[in-house]
């Protein structure tokens, strides 16, 4: 099964489970969690089931394309099920079956892993899912997001697409993954890994990035105050990515680190708060049970 078949199968599987198949978000981000389809939709009382591929950037993980297991740009397959269904683990296991992985023939384990994103003010409890000792998925029940309690709680399933592909195709290097007939992962992404590693570690201009961080922070605050949630959130994402770049460049001392994280978290919190208000103003349109909808709207007025 080649790389794009894996993606297509997952799209197909989760689509059949009633998920909206969204597309990647067009701002740089460190993980699928930061896509507004997760970060914002996890908030508030409305149900939301969604699945999408997310290109993710972790500048510090770059290895100039020389390490077979580390990339500064990689793909996650993200599924959000809100509220988390009672059979959510079975649903996940069935998705593996759909990828041709028969659980009976392997050793699948759910090993405690508590997820926390200090920059997003988000945390949850769950597991890393091990497939014959390899962590292939991160499974989290969101408890808080942007500092707000999640109610109902969603389940977040994040597949490491490269790892699953390496497993299925029995490859020892991520670059050897077959993307489609005759084309490897290296063909598509190797030069990018090299270029970005040089940029992230050696050539990114620190002053420029710092100036951009400050500008984006200011803009995020300015727009959030005008209740424009999504545009404000874009600038939060930009801040987060700029911070990661500065970090990779070694430009942030340990003392400053915490203060940068706090700045991004404050922005995330602010946007989360605005989003909650906005959904309420809209009258929680995704709640189809009219009685419940009215109840929720009435309850919070008190």
């Amino acid at each position: 099964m080649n790389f794009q078949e894996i993606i297509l199968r997952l799209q197909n599987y989760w689509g059949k489970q009633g998920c909206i198949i969204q597309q990647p978000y067009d701002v740089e981000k460190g993980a699928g969690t930061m896509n507004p389809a997760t970060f914002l939709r996890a908030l508030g009382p409305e149900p939301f089931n969604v699945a999408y591929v997310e290109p993710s950037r972790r500048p510090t993980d770059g290895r100039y394309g020389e390490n077979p297991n580390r990339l500064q740009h990689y793909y996650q397959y993200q599924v959000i099920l809100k509220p988390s269904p009672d059979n959510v683990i079975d649903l996940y296991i069935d998705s593996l079956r759909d990828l041709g992985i028969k659980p009976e023939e392997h050793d699948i384990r759910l090993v405690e892993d508590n997820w926390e994103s200090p920059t997003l003010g988000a945390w949850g409890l769950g597991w890393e899912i091990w497939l014959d000792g390899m962590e292939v998925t991160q499974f989290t029940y969101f408890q808080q997001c942007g500092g707000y309690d999640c109610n109902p709680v969603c389940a977040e399933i994040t597949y490491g697409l490269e790892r699953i592909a390496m497993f299925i195709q029995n490859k020892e290097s991520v670059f050897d993954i077959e993307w489609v007939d005759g084309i490897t992962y290296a063909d598509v992404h190797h030069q990018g890994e090299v270029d970005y590693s040089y940029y992230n570690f050696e050539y990114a201009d620190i002053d420029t990035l710092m100036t951009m961080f400050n500008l984006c922070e200011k803009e995020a605050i300015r727009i959030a105050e005008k209740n424009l949630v999504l545009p404000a959130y874009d600038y939060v994402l930009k801040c987060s990515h700029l911070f990661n770049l500065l970090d990779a460049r070694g430009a942030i001392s340990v003392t400053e680190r915490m203060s940068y994280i706090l700045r991004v978290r404050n922005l995330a919190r602010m946007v989360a708060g605005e989003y909650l208000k906005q959904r309420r103003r809209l009258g929680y349109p995704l709640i189809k049970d009219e009685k419940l909808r009215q109840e929720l709207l009435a309850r919070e007025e008190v």
Partner: protein
Amino acid sequence: MVRDLIFEIGVEEIPAAYMPKALEDFKNNALESLNKARLHYEEVKSLGTPRRLTLYVKGLRERQEDAVIESRGPKKAAAFDQEGRPTRALEGFARSQNINVEDIEVREVNGVEYVFAVKTEKGRETSEVLPSLLYELVKAFSFPKSMRWGGYSFRFARPIRWLLALYGEEKIVFNLENITSSNYTYGHRFLSPGRLEVKNAGDYFKVLENNYVIIDQERRKELIWQQIEKVASELGGRPLKDEDLLDEINYLVEYPTAFAGSFSSSYLEVPKEVLTTTMIENQRYVPVFDREGRLMPVFIGVRNGTGEFIDIVRAGNERVLKARLEDALFFWKEDLKQPLDKMAEKLGHILFHERLGSVMDKVKRITNIALFIGEKYRLSHGEKIRRAAYLCKADLVSNMVYEFPELQGIMGRYYALNHGEDEEVSQAIFEHYLPRFAGDELPGTETGTVLSLAEKIDNLTGFFAMGIKPSGSQDPYALRRQAMGIVNIVLDKGIKMDLYAVLEKAYQEVLPFRPERGKEETREEVLEFILQRMRGIMLEEGISYDVVDAVLACPSGDLVDIMNRAQILKDFRGDALFTPLMTVFNRCYNLSKKWESPEVDTDVLQDETEKVLYLKYEEVKDEVERAIDKGDYRMALVRIAGLQSYVDDFFNAVMVMVEDEKLKAARLGILKSIVKLCNKIADFSKIVE
């Protein structure tokens, strides 16, 4: 009649680390509620796997024991009028208790007669009591972290997915959120799909066993270890016995099968601590050593399942380990490219604590404290201490320690040796973190010893000076463990160190960081904190409370001296001279308790006995002080005990509390002097005879 009860809470995989305590709590809570509900049983057990917490009550009686409930009413005097007829008060009480006035009993409580309503409450059927009892048991769990799921508000370690409650053949039915308890369970997640009906409590274990679940954690653990040993012996080696690892593995599987895997021996060039840490921490594999104690290029994994398709599982695990070892090898080679002192230069970039500066700052403090200790107590050499202190934190900037923080010190030692540092200096880098946990080894070299003390004293002084102290269960910087480390090292090595002086030096080092607390306050608090650990250690040594209190009431910065005093006093208890000693102390102490001054105006002394006593005291005082200087507290005690006859003569001959103020002062002064002399060893008033 009795029946067995099985109550199973089916969950999504609970963190392995939570399980031991969860199972213990489950059992204890169950015992408590059963007793409280007057439900008799033969035995209560709690059993568990990652997916279930099960309570097994053997021989649970079918009915609660009857209860006699006595409620006290008004006084008899108020309950009956003069003719002995019930008053309104009594009638009201009887009504509220729902009994007839004729059935009221009169009893005496502390000499006063009251009326009592005595009722027998018939025990209810156990199966009526169980639903709410079991529900409360689920609620009673507490975990380090708990969560909500779906749209429910119940909290648990991980979502609860089913409840099985069977009392004999009878289902005990109750609701928890969307779940209704029933007689269905589930087997192994993959080997036994679908729910399983259990006909009666007795069948439960068999149903699970047939469906690839070994519920008894003790049995499962034993089985895992047997399998591991077998696989290891087939490989020609011995498995590492790591209880924590074994416990974790045990709570990651329902049906264990151990298997062997291997890796290329080319990775063996990486230090073995790195390899075993990777295996244990990342993968939960058991490392294997050959007969000579060398790490073998193999590992043992434990699969959750049977031996079927084990080759696929092995191949997958080998591939994962290979990738990890490849990383480790890369880090090792990268780190070796730069000498340790180059790494040390970068410590200014790593924050130690926002109030206490960078790690570089910390290294400077440790250096000065260590040099002070080394010089003052003639340990190691200035040059070695300086070098080891400079290098001791350098590995924090290495790739390997960044990846595996628990290898700090261990990697430092490797890197130092690799770049030709002195043997003892290299060893001291590792040793300055010792002891890392209760029962861990202590530093072996003098340089390591000095550095380890300096490291811990700086931590305690630094944090206390900033007002950061452990409270209750909160001790984020593990200061208790460090204080304990200081006590253990000092006592083990017999270092006659004056903590007052060392803590003063340490405080000076913290001064540039603008402490919140003053010098005296910090020093007193840290010393008190260390003496608290000392107290614990003395009690563990079998020294009784009163001796410990007596010795600590006369504090000192010299822990060896404190221990010595305590040991000798403990032994002296069995000595024939103990009673005379206590007589001397008690007679002097009792009268002079409220007297401050040990001044004695010898000119006013009248009686021969008091003159002799004072003379003898002065003789003994010199001897006692000489003995104490030599640490010979036994001799000191013997000398003081020798005063007994003079003290007795004195009390037989004179009255202390006389009208003549000057004479009284002199006599009390003698007594006070003797008490003060005793106090150089211990405060004997704390001794329980």
